[in-house]
């Protein structure tokens, strides 16, 4: 029997649930992952990624030496180099000197507007804090963003508008305390597996009733009391029709509305037109179901709403989220245990990266960059002369790429993200990547984006560094170094500090913003000095169990649920809503609606999981299509199909399943051989700038085996 040299507790690097792990190590090799059963987050339960998906660390293709491209890259002619032979192995010294030189050259020539950075929702709070500090304090730019733009941006904007804060209001595990909960635009069994377990237990063991509103017949439908199979993009009509019913039948919480909200009248009158009949016409959902759902949610003692990316990833994502917020305010289902507005965050640290200021409009702690007082506070913290920090809102993820042109963004620094898989309309993204003058990739693998880079900085994985992640219910938890960094790879925070110092010295800044940290704990403390929600967090306080923000003082116990007394903006605000169709609606040429998303076994752009044995479990892209559509199009289960949108085409195998509804096909976006984002539209929500990943119109036609990508030799797995 194998004895571990050590067993180290840490936090899972995959999704926003933030499961507690114990890594079992022998000779620097992690051979087993367990989870403590007394964990408040996951009670010893894990999903396949958490328990088995860490082996990317040891993958043979991982880059553990700094690399510089052999062939100098020119704007407009930039190429992708996946093969190691196109790269030169260099020392850290050379890589960092080279990177500093090029960044400084562009900055000194074109100024701060030429500089941009993608932070990373997979990296730690400390890594993200430092990277945004680097670009803000040194390059004086707010062109700082990360993938939150591509997931919950609209939820964040809507929550900010209505409530004044953007996180999940309650703890996920509180689902067992509610008697009715709505789940919409979320497929937790695949994307938040441990929350799905809590939801199943809530239904099966605690008597909660579940209402699923989703264009896909997801597994949770099996546990639902009501299932509303909506057409993609009909969220506002359906949820507003529920509000219509609640208003009409006097099921609203008048006392809550009077005491804690504003703008009710305008909202209520805007709901008049959203009759169940109207919603049925738009959504295809039987009006009786809408009425039943409204009554069930409104009359619950404790009702909660959980949503994920089906709501925000839309050109009317902000309105979608507002329609949910309106419902919660109307019924008073917020501010108590077992209620709430709960956007399930995707990435392990998307909450933390946002908290840490990896956003173009905010400093850490959601402090708007265009408010003078905030800029002054950070100038002081970072030893910058008054007026030194940029007061202008920066560019968002999608805007950064759009601004890549002479006179616009010239240099891009990517830590961990993979826009060449995750941006919509990838053919467009490709052109923009090619036009960059200088690209830095800091990652574990040369992924589709890093392949465009001039320099590759090999980063340590999550098991090779210390830090903190903040999970979906705002719990700040420890990440611990378990093994030595592979090869010459270094923790992100060290790379950033090393580089920032080199850049600072080239720029002859009178004061350093400070980069001489001995340990990431000092970084978090620095952030806490200016971010009240993190002020009370110290590493020693979270060694055993994480703390839920806000944690304003060193003796504060953390905050399981928010808004019990007041909302951050005082009174919560109702919003009047209008129905706006999707940017693209099905027509004769493109009769099907494509929704994209994830599968259980893979993670986003696939940089990690496709370098893991996870890839054996789910080796190739599959398109879910309803049997009726498949029969009509002459498509058999497992047969190749060509999917074409106005922007591109891919070939992959079809999976004929009732998991998707008639008229809707679903493709996961993990597979470069059939990248779903070649098809998606880059039309964005006007307020949140989030693209419409969930509704592009496509045409599906049978294809031949030869057209499938060559390296696919596995059969699609069977699923009962």
């Amino acid at each position, binding site marked *: *029997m*194998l004895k571990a040299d050590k067993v180290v507790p840490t936090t899972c690097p995959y999704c926003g649930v933030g499961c507690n792990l114990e890594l*079992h190590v*022998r*000779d620097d*090799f992690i*051979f*087993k*992952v*367990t*989870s403590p*059963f007394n964990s408040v987050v996951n*009670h*010893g*339960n*894990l*999903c*396949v990624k958490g*328990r*088995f998906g860490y*082996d990317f660390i*040891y*993958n*043979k293709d991982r880059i553990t030496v700094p690399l510089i491209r052999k062939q100098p890259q020119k704007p407009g002619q930039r190429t992708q180099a996946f093969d190691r032979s196109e790269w030169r192995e260099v020392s850290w010294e050379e890589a960092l000197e080279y990177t500093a030189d090029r960044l400084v050259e562009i900055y000194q020539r074109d100024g701060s507007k030429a500089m941009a950075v993608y932070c990373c929702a997979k990296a730690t709070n400390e890594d993200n804090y430092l990277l945004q500090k680097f670009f803000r304090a040194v390059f004086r730019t707010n062109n700082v963003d990360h993938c939150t733009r591509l997931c919950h941006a609209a939820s964040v904007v809507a929550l900010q508008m209505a409530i004044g804060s953007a996180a999940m209001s309650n703890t996920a595990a509180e689902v067992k305390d509610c008697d009715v909960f709505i789940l919409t635009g979320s497929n937790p*069994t695949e994307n938040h*597996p441990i929350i799905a*377990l809590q939801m*199943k237990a809530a239904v*099966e*063991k605690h008597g909660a009733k579940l209402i699923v509103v989703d264009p896909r017949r997801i597994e949770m439908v099996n546990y639902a009391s009501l299932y509303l199979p909506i057409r993609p993009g009909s969220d506002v009509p359906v949820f507003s029709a529920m509000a219509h019913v609640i208003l009409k039948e006097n099921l609203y919480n008048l006392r809550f509305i009077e005491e804690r909200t504003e703008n009710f009248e305008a909202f209520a009158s805007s709901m008049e037109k959203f009759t169940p009949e109207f919603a049925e016409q738009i959504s295809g959902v039987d009006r009786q179901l809408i009425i039943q759902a409204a009554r069930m949610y409104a009359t619950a003692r404790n009702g909660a709403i959980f949503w994920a990316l089906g709501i925000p990833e839309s050109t009317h994502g902000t309105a979608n989220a507002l329609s949910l917020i309106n419902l919660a305010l109307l019924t008073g289902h917020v501010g108590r245990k077992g209620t709430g507005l709960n956007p399930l965050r995707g990435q392990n640290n998307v909450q933390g990266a946002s908290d840490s200021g990896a956003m173009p409009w905010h400093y850490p702690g959601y402090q708007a960059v265009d408010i003078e007082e905030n800029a002054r506070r950070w100038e002081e913290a970072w030893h910058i002369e008054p007026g030194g920090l940029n007061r202008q809102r920066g560019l968002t993820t999608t805007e950064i790429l759009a601004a890549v042109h002479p006179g616009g963004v010239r240099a891009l620094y990517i830590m961990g993200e993979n826009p060449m898989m995750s941006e919509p309309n990838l053919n467009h993204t490709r052109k923009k990547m090619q036009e960059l003058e200088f690209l830095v990739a800091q990652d574990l693998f040369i992924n589709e984006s890093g392949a465009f880079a001039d320099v590759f900085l090999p980063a340590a994985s999550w098991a090779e560094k210390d830090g903190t992640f903040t999970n979906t219910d705002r719990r700040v938890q420890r990440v611990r170094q378990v093994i030595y960094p592979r090869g010459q790879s270094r923790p992100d925070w060290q790379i950033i500090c090393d580089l920032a110092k080199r850049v600072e010295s080239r720029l002859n800044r009178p004061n350093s913003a400070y980069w001489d940290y001995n340990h990431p704990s000092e970084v978090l403390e620095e952030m806490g000095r200016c971010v009240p929600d993190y002020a009370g967090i110290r590493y020693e306080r979270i060694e055993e169990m994480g703390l839920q923000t806000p944690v304003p003082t060193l003796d504060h116990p953390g905050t399981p649920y928010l808004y019990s007394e007041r909302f951050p903006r005082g009174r919560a605000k109702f919003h009047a809503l209008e129905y706006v169709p999707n940017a693209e609606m099905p027509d004769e040429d493109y009769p099907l609606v494509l929704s994209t998303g994830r599968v*259980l*076994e893979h993670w986003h752009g696939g940089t990690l999981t496709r370098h893991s*044995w*996870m*890839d*054996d*479990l789910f*080796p190739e892209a599959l398109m879910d299509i309803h049997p009726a559509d498949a029969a009509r199009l002459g498509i058999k289960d497992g047969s190749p199909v060509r999917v074409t949108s106005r922007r591109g085409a891919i070939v992959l195998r079809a999976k004929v399943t009732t998991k998707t509804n008639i008229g809707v096909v679903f493709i996961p976006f993990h597979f470069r051989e059939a990248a779903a984002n070649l098809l998606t539209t880059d039309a964005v929500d006007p307020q949140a700038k989030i693209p419409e990943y969930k509704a592009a119109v496509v045409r599906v036609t049978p294809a031949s085996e030869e057209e499938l990508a060559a*390296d696919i*030799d*596995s059969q699609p*797995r*069977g*699923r*009962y």
Partner: protein
Amino acid sequence: MGEPISITIDQQTVQAAAGSTILEAARQAGIHIPTICYHDYCTANGLCRICVVDVEGSRTLQPACVVQVQDGMVIHTRTERVIRSRRTILEMLASSVNLSEAPEIQDLFNQYHSDASRFPDAEPRHPAVIDDNPMYIRDYAKCILCWRCVQVCAEDAQFTFAINFSGRGYETQISTFYEIPMPESTCVFCGQCVGVCPTGALKPKRQWLLEMGYTPDEIMSLTRSQRQRRKRREEISQNPA
């Protein structure tokens, strides 16, 4: 948990919450009762019976993990009957399954002076290792049928229901539907089952390979494409045509 009530365990008067089990009450009083199938986070089924105790007034011995305390209950945890049952159950286990990776059960062996070779006629259960997926292996020769894996796959955690039983009685084994390979079942490879397995019958594949003497480098070279190439080579060598 209700009002505290008074019980007697091994001549010691103990206060316990009404509704608590004998095991919980004993633990609180610092009295050790051994367990095998019991797990704090799984539904207790009283299967292994190693936790049986003598309750005055009961004809048979009572499993401490499930029997709730009653006011005035008089419990003896180490009578001759209790010891005989525990020792014999351990001896029967040792003659049925491979306990080499169950250190806690081995400890009990010493405590109860059990003789692992007590049953020379015994036919142990020794099915072959099932290696049908990239995540974990199933070595049911080590399975003590504690049911935890079946429970966590079902209502105790995952609600996936990929495994149940085949056979009956001594021939019982944990099994998928018609013994199909795990990837064809409803299994989602959460590994909850691996997490609760007390005897190493369920084991992460990489740990298993390491124990078989592969180096980490060799293990990580076992990528899908390489495995498939090897399989193809084998097929070709078996069937040259």
